[in-house]
């Protein structure tokens, strides 16, 4: 296998991480909606925590995307 095709395959493998982050973001918002339906009065006060969880989950997916981009464009092997 030559380097060009190995690069493309590697970038495709790195893109799997984005899907994993989608699971995380969905879980964060899903459990927020679930618990805020149980106790709607407390939901508004927890929005800060909701977005911290969302940001942390999303960041890891964005890292995977950044790695795919680095492999594709920045890595001149």
């Amino acid at each position, binding site marked *: 296998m030559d380097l060009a095709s190995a690069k493309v395959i590697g970038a495709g493998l790195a893109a799997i991480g984005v899907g994993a982050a989608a699971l995380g973001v969905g879980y964060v918002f899903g459990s927020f909606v679930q618990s805020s339906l149980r106790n709607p009065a407390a939901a508004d006060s927890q929005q800060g925590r909701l977005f911290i969880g*969302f940001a942390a989950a999303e*960041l890891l997916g964005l890292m995977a995307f950044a790695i795919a981009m680095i492999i594709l464009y920045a890595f001149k092997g």
Partner: protein
Amino acid sequence: MAAGDIDPMHQFVIEPIFGSFQRNNPFVFTNSALWTLIVLFTIWLFMVGGMKRELVPGRWQIMVEGLIGFVDNMVHASIGPEGRKYLPWVFTSFIFLLFANLMGNMPFGVYAPAHPFTVTSQFTFTGVMSLISFAIVLGVGFYKHKLHFFSLFMPSGVPLVGKLLLFPIEFVSFLVRPFSLGLRPFIAMFAGHILLDIFGNFVVQGLQAGGGGIAISILCFLFVTFISALELLVAAIQAYVFAILTSLYINDAVNLH
């Protein structure tokens, strides 16, 4: 580069408008600088239009006051009554990221150097903003608590063995903060614009191919429309996340745990 190739990175190239990148010429007016000025001018217009201080506010004034009240509430909720002091920076970063992200989505690409350039798609911009946030956290923390600030890394109510284990983890997670804070708005804008560029190219290439390509082209056009709407949402969310994380980090420095 061959005719059918897609070059999604081209939209992030910083090109000089006046002057050129040469030695002995450190001051170059680039498209990034131009769009920063346009964003700042738009923010100025927006704020000036709403600062008439009328007793019965018009629509514009309600818009501006609502935005300030939104950030003020957020800072108050996460820092407490002392948070008012840090409102200027949190509001500045929020409104700058919001306007820069939204204006980067404007759909004109007619004249190459003047096409809407997303200034937040460069890590230099968001990185410097997150460094300022981190500098405020460090400055406030060490000024208010002196060396007692290091107790931020010591979770209370944990036995000594646990503290020894948790101290390096907390320390590293604290040091990673400026990096992750700046990386998030940058990558979100960067990824969204690459996606738009790639699918926009698919629309044109599908039309050129004809036959079954036209069906793919229509699908991609719908997808681009949907992604554009998503980009508007992401632009606002990233500005909000930056502001709320900044105020939470400042809260750590002001109140420790």
